[in-house]
């Protein structure tokens, strides 16, 4: 079961998983509350090393370290300086994006990049170099990080500026270069806390791709939900959602009194035990049908809260439990522009196979980010959640990996829990640079994770 954050100071052996709740492994969980304790945690990692962990939203095994230490950084959670004039925040790595939004929105600032959940830490956002619905405009998280402090394997703390090798190795480096302690982040100005949202339906994949290609650049935020259970002529039918931060003029009179209010609502959590097999083709197919039909053919200017637009699933704590004890895998890949045929083929294969996925999201990435192991690159990215208990799923996803790699694409490491190690180098051409830097920075391999072991990160070039 996933490790819930505890406040005890004594290290304990805990079974740890990622958000997908697959492949548990046991580690010593330490939760430093000061930088000195963080330094001590790194120095005392033991023979099987350590890995930083935030709120555990990485789907796979990136923040697990079997037999070693897992350094929970959520105890380092101070917001040090908010420069409300320039729009820059200096905060600890354990601060969540949720907390940043609470503090910054009333001041007229928003986090520059947010993924589908607010419950990720700043450290995790840097380690996974997360992207959001605005990647085509704003790039990934690291693009907005001016500098950070990094605690490296020798127990020293470095200030790392944008544009340096260590910066580019750490952003997207999955915590394997060290523990980020603080970061300075440039913020996005907003005038209201509401989103102005346009919704439209696309009848099939080609229609969807044409709409996205033609109009994506006009929207700051853009994403498409695809019904992967639709078949035949409807294969790839989708609901497009685009949004901007609403202007004060667009707000109804009542909301204008407090235009920057941030009040996300939360429903009760999913129960700790949920029987498996809830998400079948039938139930998911039904959901997808309703979801598609419910969406308006075209609607513009609808006002939505930030949580409704960006983080609908955050409203249900522990929603990952609905997949039962088998857990689930998220499969996210990107293929470059010009490789639309690969995307079409994969969507076709997913539709043919009838994978019960109710969360399948397509979007267009903009310019690549400098992080050596950063996931985004210009092209199409598709992400989907699939119950891990589906028979034959492993072999099927291996086949998709082959197609993705052959097209020069890659899968996301923050989501991964099953990639074949042989494909890592093909998908991430700067892997050898990363290994070389790590060999120099951390010759004893203090920073290591289940992901790093599984994908042979330590193997020399």
């Amino acid at each position, binding site marked *: 079961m996933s490790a819930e954050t505890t406040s005890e100071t004594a290290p304990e*052996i805990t*079974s740890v998983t990622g958000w*997908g709740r*697959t*492949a*548990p*492994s*046991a*580690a010593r969980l330490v939760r430093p509350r000061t930088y000195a304790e963080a330094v001590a945690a790194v120095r005392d990692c033991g023979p*099987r090393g350590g890995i930083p962990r935030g709120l555990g939203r990485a789907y*796979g*095994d990136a923040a697990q*370290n*079997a*037999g*070693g230490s897992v350094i929970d950084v959520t105890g380092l959670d101070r917001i040090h300086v908010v420069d409300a004039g320039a729009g820059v925040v200096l905060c600890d790595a354990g601060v969540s994006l949720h907390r940043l939004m609470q503090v910054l929105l009333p001041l007229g600032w928003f986090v520059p990049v947010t993924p589908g959940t607010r419950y990720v830490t700043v450290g995790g956002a840097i380690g996974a170099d997360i992207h959001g619905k605005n990647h085509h405009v704003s790039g990934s998280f690291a693009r907005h990080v001016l500098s950070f402090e990094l605690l490296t394997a020798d127990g020293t703390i470095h200030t790392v500026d944008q544009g340096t090798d260590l910066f580019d190795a750490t952003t997207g480096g999955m915590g394997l270069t060290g523990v980020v302690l603080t970061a300075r982040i440039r913020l996005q100005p907003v005038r209201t806390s509401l989103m102005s949202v346009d919704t439209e339906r696309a009848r099939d994949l080609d229609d969807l791709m044409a709409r996205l290609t033609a109009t994506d650049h006009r929207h700051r935020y853009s994403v498409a939900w695809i019904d992967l259970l639709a078949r035949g002529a409807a294969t790839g039918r989708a609901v497009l959602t685009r949004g901007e931060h609403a202007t004060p003029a667009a707000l109804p009179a009542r909301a204008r009194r407090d235009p920057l209010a941030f009040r996300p609502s939360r429903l009760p959590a999913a129960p700790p035990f949920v029987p498996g097999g809830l998400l079948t083709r039938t139930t998911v197919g039904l959901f997808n049908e309703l979801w598609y039909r419910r969406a308006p053919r075209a609607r513009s200017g609808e006002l939505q809260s930030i949580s409704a637009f960006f983080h609908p699933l955050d409203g249900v704590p522990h929603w990952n439990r609905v997949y039962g*004890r*088998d*857990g689930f*895998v998220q499969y996210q890949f990107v293929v470059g522009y010009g490789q639309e045929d690969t995307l079409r083929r994969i969507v076709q294969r997913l539709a043919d196979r009838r994978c019960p996925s109710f969360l399948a999201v397509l979007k267009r990435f903009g310019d690549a980010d400098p992080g050596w192991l950063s996931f985004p690159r210009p092209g199409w990215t598709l992400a989907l959640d699939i119950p*891990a*208990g589906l028979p034959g*799923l*492993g*072999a099927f996803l291996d086949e998709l990996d082959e197609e993705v790699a052959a097209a020069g694409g890659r899968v996301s490491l923050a989501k991964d*829990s*099953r990639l*074949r*190690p042989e494909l890592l180098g093909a998908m991430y051409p700067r892997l050898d640079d990363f290994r070389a830097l790590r060999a120099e920075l951390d010759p004893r391999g203090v920073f290591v994770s*289940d*992901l790093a*072991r*599984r994908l042979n990160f330590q193997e020399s070039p």
Partner: protein
Amino acid sequence: MKDAFGLPQSLLVLGGTSEIALATARRLIARRTRTVWLAGRPSPALESAAAQLRTLGADVHTVAFDALDPGSHEAVLGKVFAEGDVDLVLLAFGVLGDQANDERDPSAAVRVAQTNYTGAVSAGLVAARGLQTQGHGSLVVLSSVAGERARRSNFIYGSSKAGLDAFAQGLGDALHGTGVHVMVVRPGFVRTRMTEGREEAPLATTPEAVATAVELGLRRRSGTVWVPGVLRLVMAAVRHTPRALLRRLPV
């Protein structure tokens, strides 16, 4: 490391010439397994098993291992664990013995018990400690339906498997929460070298079917796996059959 589907990248087989183990190894190599350690008594059969797995693309090593020499287990298995993580240990050694002969020759019966039970207790504990230190991994123990209820026709073998089965279950409970998963596999009659020439029991199965069940069990992180699955029901009935009746049944 195991992946999200429980598939191991490295495998240690205790009883490296076991047909069930080799069928399982072949299946796992076809998926994720790249490193295999075949532990067994040095023999041409062990080497040829290794050679065969190498042709499938795995990096295969053989290790001299004797179930009947528990004193050596720590050193032998320790060396394997020192080479790198072992994601799956498959405890597959065992002998069937010759019931009629073993009843007459207690020393032969003891050899069956020592191999199947004592040797497995020793090797199982050593492997479990290695896995626990790693904080992850699976120990798959090949038990047998014969251990579920002692029967006239093979109670010496059956009792040794009963001991092994109870040991493995307890070990699984002891390791709960340590990241280590213990899975007991209870096949019925498996058509192998070991059972050649014997009269087949109903619901006879193959090493390949056992391998398939092992892969499924790993994905589900099962505690117990029956092969074929229907044996779970059959044996539940057999377990509750009165002795006086069972004695007369042709099983």
